[in-house]
């Protein structure tokens, strides 16, 4: 029963992909949509069943769906590992995924490629489920590539838009760089452990040398940084906002981009053997958290602000991993999935209301026109800014506390400044969108309308989760969440810091202060004295333009990598056309000539020789006369020659047999 439930989880969306993909054009959009979100809903129900079972028995269990290849000592199974970590990921993926699917029904209503959209979305669900459920690196990799492919397809969903096509290509290429590192890691793991099963690898992890562990984990990190948009491979994620907003919510906020974090936590036994890698994770995470937050300060596209915020929040999760706070990382992953999905979807609702407008300079004063969207967006903002008692406060505070208690004060500083900036830019976004005077295009203004219930109900549910989700991890370090994940995500061999209540409360107070400080600054600059922002921008134009242009990283990458690659491509093209092609043609001619030569030799030398010997002359004469082409005797001669060689071999083998100790006569 348990096994069946587990197998059904990815099977439902897969069936939906097949049905909608193969026959979707034959029935209405409504039916296609129902099949799509129904399948995810069923997966969610199965996940609840699995969750109930895991609550009763948290021991890791393996479920083999089927053995694909086995033979010798090679075996590749499509098998699932169900433990608390997987269960949490499953709940997030299917739960949030289900809500986003429902929302999409409303958001994508009337789109021409409605069925195509849902086919891709369901395919994404299948891949993501394989990614988090697999019990070996092969299944993980299949899921990993699958989500990358779906991300590509969905970013480029509006394929008639050139920018969408470019963004999709960029996402794909940057992810490939990460995947290359990930593949190398898989090869290293296989060559070192001789197996790709998590359970066996983790059991033998302590036998690794530090150097090997560092090599493997650094390669894994390249993959994780690509998928989770960390420095220096983050540039694709802001561009990925070209896709439809539910895609941004599902793939580029709640699930796929967190795959890197999941992978690090899943392999924490390897990371614990490699202090260098852990330090790298922490520093990259911390720097990314701060770096992306600074860019988020000045962006004017509502989805781009959220995208940089996602990059920054993912940085927090990696930072948590780097200081050994794996549970804190997963906790933040879960709460982030709630409030970031909420923010993206409500941003989608705003865009929907304004008929596609994404520039916050053309919004403002929307709070009474679309009240539901306003309230849920505000809840999301409060949650991400870290205002207690909303979800983001608990999880972010735990990461900050972890960094502080572990004595990583520099990381704490990064995180704290990042938190201040987060609070600031999120409230800036809220003020510019919902308060102040309306800057909406008058043509658009009288069309403004609240979204239909199919969109607002998922928003309200997500808002509820963003408010309450944090209580899973209360009290800090000892909440239900920590108990549930304790066995699968506790660092190996790390001493436990017992934190005094006073320190905990002190750190919390500081965190609250930071959040409120950011809020107040935003309130001052965008509500009390709205001119302040422009004055500051004019006062230090270099800083402003640098931030607005995202530190010119994209331009630098273009100059450093893309342009040289293009030139290399042109060079290679030239080489291909002028040298390689000629070479290939030459080889082709060579083959032709040698084939002709062999045929000629066969015909004129070999067979002529045989004719001279005179074997089967009468046969030849008869066959020639009858058929004009009888070379049967030649064929027979080939057989005789081959036979003679084989017999000769056997005889030689016997003659030499005595020296090899084999039986002779």
């Amino acid at each position, binding site marked *: 029963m348990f096994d069946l439930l587990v197998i059904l989880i990815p099977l439902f969306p897969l069936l939906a992909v097949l049905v909608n993909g193969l026959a979707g054009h034959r029935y209405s959009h409504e039916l296609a949509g129902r099949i799509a979100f129904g399948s995810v809903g069923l997966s969610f129900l199965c996940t609840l069943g699995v969750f109930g079972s895991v609550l009763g028995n948290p021991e890791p269990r393996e479920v083999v769906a*089927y*053995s*694909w*290849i*086995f*033979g*010798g000592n*090679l075996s590749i199974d499509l098998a699932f590992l169900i433990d608390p970590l997987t269960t949490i990921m499953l709940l997030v993926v299917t739960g949030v995924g289900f809500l986003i699917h429902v929302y999409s029904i409303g958001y994508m209503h009337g789109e021409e490629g409605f069925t195509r959209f849902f086919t891709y979305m369901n395919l994404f669900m299948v891949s993501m489920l394989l990614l988090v459920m697999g019990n070996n690196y092969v299944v993980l990799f299949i899921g990993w590539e699958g989500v990358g492919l779906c991300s590509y397809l969905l970013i480029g969903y509006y394929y008639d838009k050139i920018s969408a096509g470019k963004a999709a290509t960029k996402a794909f290429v940057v992810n490939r760089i990460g995947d290359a590192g990930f593949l190398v890691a898989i090869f290293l793991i296989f060559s070192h452990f001789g197996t790709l099963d998590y359970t066996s690898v983790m059991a033998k992890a302590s036998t690794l040398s530090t150097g090997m562990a560092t090599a493997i984990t650094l390669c894994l990190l390249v993959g994780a940084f690509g998928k989770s948009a960390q420095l220096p491979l983050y540039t694709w994620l802001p561009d990925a906002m070209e896709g439809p907003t539910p895609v941004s919510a599902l793939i580029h906020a709640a699930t796929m981009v967190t795959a890197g974090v999941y992978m690090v936590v899943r392999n924490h036994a390897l990371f614990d053997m490699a202090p260098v890698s852990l330090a790298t994770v922490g520093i990259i995470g911390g720097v990314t958290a701060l770096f992306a937050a600074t860019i988020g300060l000045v962006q004017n596209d509502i989805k781009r602000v959220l995208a940089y915020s996602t990059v920054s929040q993912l940085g927090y999760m990696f930072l948590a991993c780097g200081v050994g706070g794996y549970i804190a990382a997963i906790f933040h992953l879960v709460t982030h999935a709630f409030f970031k999905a909420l923010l993206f979807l409500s941003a989608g609702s705003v865009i929907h209301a304004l008929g596609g407008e994404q520039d916050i300079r053309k919004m403002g004063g929307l709070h009474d026109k679309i009240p539901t969207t306003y309230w849920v967006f505000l809840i999301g903002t409060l949650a991400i800014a870290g205002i207690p008692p909303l979800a983001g406060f608990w999880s972010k505070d735990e990461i900050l506390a972890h960094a502080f208690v572990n004595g990583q004060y520099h990381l704490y500083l990064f995180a704290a400044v990042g938190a201040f900036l987060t609070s600031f830019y999120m409230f800036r976004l809220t003020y510019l969108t919902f308060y102040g005077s309306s800057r909406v295009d008058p043509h658009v203004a009288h069309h403004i309308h609240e979204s239909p219930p199919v969109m607002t109900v998922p928003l309200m549910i997500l808002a509820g989760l963003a408010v309450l989700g944090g209580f899973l991890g209360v009290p800090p370090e000892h909440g239900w969440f920590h108990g549930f994940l304790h066995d699968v995500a506790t660092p190996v061999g790390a001493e436990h810091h017992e934190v005094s209540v006073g320190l905990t409360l002190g750190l919390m107070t500081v965190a609250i202060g930071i959040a409120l400080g950011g809020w107040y600054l935003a309130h001052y600059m965008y509500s009390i004295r709205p001119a302040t922002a422009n004055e500051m921008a004019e006062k230090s134009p270099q800083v402003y333009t640098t931030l607005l242009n995202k530190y010119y990283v994209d331009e630098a990458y273009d100059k450093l990598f893309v342009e040289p690659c293009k030139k290399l491509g042109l060079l290679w093209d030239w080489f291909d056309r002028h040298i390689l092609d000629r070479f290939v043609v030459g080889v082709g001619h060579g*083959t*032709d000539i040698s*084939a002709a030569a062999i045929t000629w030799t066969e015909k004129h030398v070999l067979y002529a020789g045989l004719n001279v010997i005179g074997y089967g002359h009468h*046969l030849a004469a008869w*066959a020639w006369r*009858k*058929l004009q*082409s*009888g070379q*049967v005797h*030649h*064929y*027979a001669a*080939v*057989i005789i*020659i*081959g*036979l003679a*060689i*084989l*017999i000769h*071999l*056997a*005889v*030689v*083998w*016997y003659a*030499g*047999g005595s020296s*090899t100790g*084999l*039986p*002779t*006569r």
Partner: protein
Amino acid sequence: MLTFNLTLSGSDLLLLLPEIFLTLWLCVVLCLDFSLKRITHQQLAYLSIGGLGITGLMLIGMDVTGITGALFKNMFVLDHLALFFKILVVLATALVVFMSIDYVRDFRFFKGEYYCMVVMSAIGMMFMASSNDLLSVFVTLEFSTFGFYVLVAYLRDDIRSSEAGLKFFILGVFAAGLLAYGISLVYGETGTMVFSEMAGNQGSYGLAIGFILIFAALGFKIGAVPFHSWIPDTYQGAPTPVTAFLSIAPKGAALAILIRMFYVALASFKPMWVVVFVLASIVSMTYGNVVAIAQKNIKRLLAYSGIAQIGNIMIGLAAGTKQGSDAIMFFLLTYLFANLGAFAVIIAVSQVIRSDEIEDYNGLNRRSPFLAAAMLLFLLSLAGVPPLAGFIGKLYLFVAAMEQELYTLLVVGLVNIVISMYYYLIVVKKMYINEPTDPSPIAASMPIKVAVYVGIAGTLVLGIYPGPFIDWAVDATLMFSNIVAPVAALSVLPGS
């Protein structure tokens, strides 16, 4: 001295039930053909398929219930190995009959007899799978080949068909002569005909030469270099369904004998025959693949590709372990679906365009997306591209060779996969990229579609869900788990 005293009981006859049933069914079909004036050849074809289907069910039933035994002083043995190959032969035959229906419509004479010849050959091959001594090898081999002699030359008005038939006949008789000579040598040296009684015999020149002669005759059947020379001409000249039939069923049946003979009778000779198979495998793969590149006719292309695939199969024989035979049997299954599927597409296309030239496959995708996609799938499976069946088949063969540390063979095999990819993809390129000279659509008839769909299903299922089929092959050769101990192989090359 050979003395026979036959005692047959009812339960013994049960072991022969599928063969007896199919023979009777064949007679009924034949009688219906000449006694009912109104009966069409399609009806006869479906009758034959029905008989084959019932036979297949019987065989599967026997395999599942585990009915085994030996008859006629071990001349005829029914075990899981035999049942595996019998099911393979029956399946191939049924598919070939499906493919033939369209083709036979154009015959002017003897439409009904065609199906009888096909089924008769199938009965011969079913006996081949069970033959356990040299005499029954000779008799059953000739029995099955007899049908093919007729079938290959079935197009009486087509000079190339007659030529192919004649060549096949002459060389076949020649191979039979070699076989008889080999049998006489072996019998002279050992005093027995039965494989299991030869096991453990000390070697001698006469015995070695005898076995090599027998191998030559069987190598002729499976088309291994250097006994391959009849294949291209015969494949090209024969009616295409017969070519399809030739390309899989006799190879399977002959491999049953090869496995039985080398694993049972010749187990103590293993170091010697490993060398023979390594050489034959390397030469077959390389020759088949290289010459296939130059082919202009799709049937000839598949003929040479078949020679190369036999080279692949002999990798398993060269490994000489149970793992090797398992791999061979699984590979044969994958080969059956991909190869018969490809021939079905060829028949469907040639029924419309009346040509087998590869040039005429230009732009097939525009003319029939279904046939082009199916052909693509079959060619990719033949080339061994994951996740299709052929990939898993080749993987197992290579794993078996790797376990025996046959690295030279492995490297040659891998290089050959790359070469084969080239000519398979040339066909793909012509189908998908080149412009058709004549854009009129090509429609396939229902029976051909059945064969193509079965091929597609088999190719996909064996690739994605090979587990049960591998288990089937593994269980079929359980008797070898004790017989062939893994022996380091190449260390006993001559003179080393």
